[in-house]
């Protein structure tokens, strides 16, 4: 069994990153110009990495599947970005942000990585302000903050309900600057279809390029580089219905996995508590309502089962239920954090109430998020100023006015903490292949705190990868640029073309979406919020059946050698099916509950997650063993040197 070296630097926690930077290898300016880097993805991680690597002088090629880098799904993040600035003088510090993140992740993340994340968080805010990101400000001209789940300080910086948009546009503008300077070349409407590896003179395989499809012309093309960086986001769309964008996919992760990169903790998926509930079988996605709403909204269901049943039948209006008959179950169960408990805790609590029959809409799968109390305290105008755009969005979708009636919300798949395994340098188990942002597994453990995804994406792209990739590239300065005519590119392209031809030949009767919905249903039902040994074994069986349906009954109209949206979706779907299986394997293996992974067999008498640190304090790294074969699991032990591992407590 391979030993796993996570390359954590020596020294005290607070000194590791400084020590690393002080002693790492660098590439001089003249040599940087001779080195090519491919960055796949243009979200917060990809765009910030491409822009920064370009500004350092490397030759960068940046790929995105949309028509412009500005469309990446980071743009949809609403609430904010965390940083340990302590501008509010409320007791925040780098150490506290680190602790909150470690605890929020249910002690399943690496200490050194998380500390570094907290450390560079402050640089991110400085950088974004310098780019012209219009963060919210106080009348005195300083930056405003608000609080988010899982913390007792106000450390979240925001730009109305559009923080992700403003941060992405900041990174996109930095990218535009580098394009203008000739350091970055953009490949829009292009999708990576495989990773190309080439052996070096010592016989060691290294990532040296990609095969991609030009989505407009349908052509299969090649691109070579000295290193490849993937920043392609998460795989939440394995559930079909999620808060992800329609094209968000985990295929780049799977391509790298099949070439030997480990897939770490695939079972760790985050279910966001405040989404608009599902309302029909034709629905294409779930819309998130920002976690920031939990600052002022109170979550409740009726105390009396008969009230819930009347609500389900539409016989009464929620406003008819008096306060004393309302069960503010988060405030009841978690007095210290109340409505601001972390996402996994809030989601499970909603499921618990709905499972008991207290759901408030026709399907019984919804709870209330009520602003009545905040409007009584602060007035309608204050609430409108804070959340106006979110309220308008809610009303447009549901036809219900949230100023007058409580919102209805329910948990939905939102983010995946699992992803490509990376070491401290963000390098995967394939030399020369790096993974950043949501597509790696590194910083969030088993649960991500709100406003930390933006922080991690930008930390990786602006301040971590641009350093660590140089350690790798310093050895590569004498290697000339690669020709894409090499036999490795030839073989990879041929394999991609055969895969596509195989898909086009199926010629069955089912659309991609119809099979994807079937997959999503299985994932939600059996690998969702509450998992059991039985449900996971059922899932694996059912996923095999879906895979069979895919390969025998799929229909892709049109031609592969031109624009073909159905073909694009089919290529992503088959990877989602394989990802789904990996998630089920991993969830089955992890016989404990932690963060977003809840095994019903493992809970405390009060229904809280029950970890088994003596057995499962490790990162599960799944290694590909060939088509149709069960992958092998390797363990990277998690050693907590500086933090005392405890049971998470949001009660007092």
């Amino acid at each position, binding site marked *: 069994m391979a030993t796993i070296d996570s390359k954590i630097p020596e020294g005290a926690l607070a000194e590791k990153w400084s020590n690393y930077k002080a002693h790492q290898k660098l590439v001089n300016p003249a040599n940087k110009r001779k080195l090519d880097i491919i960055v796949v993805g243009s979200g917060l991680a990809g765009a910030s990495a491409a822009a920064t690597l370009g500004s350092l002088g490397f030759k960068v090629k940046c790929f995105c599947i*949309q028509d412009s880098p500005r469309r990446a799904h980071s743009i*949809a993040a609403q609430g904010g970005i965390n940083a340990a600035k302590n501008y509010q003088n409320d007791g925040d510090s780098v150490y506290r942000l680190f602790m909150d993140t470690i605890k929020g992740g249910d002690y399943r993340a690496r200490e050194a990585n998380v500390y570094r994340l907290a450390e560079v968080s402050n640089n991110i805010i400085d950088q974004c302000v310098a780019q012209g990101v219009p963060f919210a400000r106080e009348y005195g001209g300083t930056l405003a903050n608000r609080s988010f789940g899982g913390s007792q300080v106000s450390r979240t910086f925001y730009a109305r309900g559009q923080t992700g948009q403003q941060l992405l546009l900041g990174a996109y503008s930095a990218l535009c600057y580098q394009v203008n300077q000739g350091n970055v070349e953009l490949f829009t409407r292009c999708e990576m279809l495989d990773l190309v590896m080439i052996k070096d003179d010592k016989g060691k395989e290294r990532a040296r390029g990609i095969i991609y499809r030009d989505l407009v012309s349908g052509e299969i093309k090649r691109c070579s580089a000295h290193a490849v960086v993937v920043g392609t986001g998460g795989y939440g769309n394995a559930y079909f219905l999620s808060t992800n964008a*329609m094209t968000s996919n985990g295929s780049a992760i799977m391509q790298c996995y099949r070439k030997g990169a480990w897939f770490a903790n695939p079972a760790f998926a985050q279910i966001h508590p405040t989404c608009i509930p599902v309302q029909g079988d034709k629905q294409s996605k779930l819309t998130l309502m920002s976690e920031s709403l939990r600052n002022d909204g109170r979550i409740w269901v009726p105390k009396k089962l008969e009230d819930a049943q009347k609500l389900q039948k539409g016989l009464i209006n929620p406003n008819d239920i008096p306060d004393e008959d309302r069960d503010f179950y988060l405030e009841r169960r978690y007095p210290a954090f109340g409505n601001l408990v972390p996402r996994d805790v809030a989601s499970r609590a909603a499921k618990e109430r709905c499972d008991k029959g207290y759901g408030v809409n026709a399907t019984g799968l919804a709870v209330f998020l009520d602003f009545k109390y905040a409007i009584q305290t602060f007035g309608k105008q204050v609430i409108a100023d804070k959340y106006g755009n979110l309220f308008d969005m809610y009303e447009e979708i549901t036809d219900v006015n949230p100023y007058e009636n409580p919102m209805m919300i329910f948990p939905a798949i939102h983010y995946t903490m699992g992803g490509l395994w990376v070491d401290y340098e963000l390098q995967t188990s394939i030399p020369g292949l790096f993974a950043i942002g949501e597509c790696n597994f590194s910083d969030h453990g088993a649960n991500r705190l709100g406003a930390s995804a933006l922080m991690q994406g930008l930390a990786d792209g602006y301040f971590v990868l641009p350093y660590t990739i140089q350690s790798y590239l310093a050895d590569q300065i004498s290697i000339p640029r690669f020709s894409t005519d090499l036999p490795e590119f030839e073989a990879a392209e041929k394999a991609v073309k055969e895969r596509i031809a195989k898909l086009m030949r199926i010629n069955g009767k089912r659309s991609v979406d119809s099979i994807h919905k079937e997959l999503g249903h299985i994932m939600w039902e059996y690998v969702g919020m509450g998992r059991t040994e039985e449900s996971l074994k059922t899932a694996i069986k059912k996923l095999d059946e879906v895979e069979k349906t895919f390969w025998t009954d799929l229909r892709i109209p049109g031609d592969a050698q031109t624009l073909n949206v*159905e073909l694009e979706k089919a290529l992503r779907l088959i990877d989602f099916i394989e990802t789904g299986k990996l998630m089920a394997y991993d969830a089955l293996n992890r016989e404990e509950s932690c963060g977003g992974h809840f095994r019903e067999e493992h809970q405390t008498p009060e229904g809280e997650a029950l970890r088994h640190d003596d057995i499962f304090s490790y990162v599960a790294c799944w290694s590909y063993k060939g088509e149709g074969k069960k992958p092998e699991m390797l363990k990277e032990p998690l050693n907590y040197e500086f933090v005392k591992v405890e049971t998470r407590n949001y009660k007092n």
Partner: protein
Amino acid sequence: MEKTISFKLKIWRQRGPKEKGQFKVYEMKDISTDASFLEMLDILNEQLINAGEEPVVFDHDCREGICGMCSLYINGYPHGPATGATTCQLYMRRFKDGETITVEPWRSAGFPIIRDLMVDRTAYDKIMQAGGYVSINTGGVPDANSIPISKEKADLAMDAASCIGCGACVAACKNGSAMLFVSAKVSQLALLPQGQVEAERRVKAMLAKMDELGFGNCTNTRACEAECPKNVSISNIARLNREFIVAKLRD
């Protein structure tokens, strides 16, 4: 109870940029009024695929009104009849039973059609690359609170910055002008001290690129503002003009 409607869809189909396009009519039956417009198109595409035909191609991604990808011209309006909303935020309850709904791509010289309802908006990226940024590298910047910015200025900058780059303003404009798009970025950065350092260079470079790419000029019809899904105001165009005049006077 779920309400449904039936209607005719008249959709523009065009194979490629140089090929001739035409309207095709599809009958849609019993569509839930709670479905979004794009979900309705998903239903149509599912029907087409099941009949062995090629689905209608249209751009879409986030489906929550922020990525700027969706771009349909519905019944003569960019993003359809709702105001302050993108196509993906449009719901079928806005339409009536028995009506004919006409769907076209953005039509503008600056945005050539790729296929059906999908257009090429790379011109916007090119305008941004001409100067829509603050010329700084990563690192070496001052503390975020070192320069106070009035709340009023920050809010105005945020209003401008909410542009999603969808192109509705160009599609709405009889001159095919990209002035609202350009002015939103110029305004955002001109309002903030960080962007003021190179404001003059920026406004000239972005406008020159806009002209070069074949977009028309502004004649103050305000169609752009009326159709903008993010309600970006044409006062930004006034600010852009001021910025431009000041920059030119110093030449």
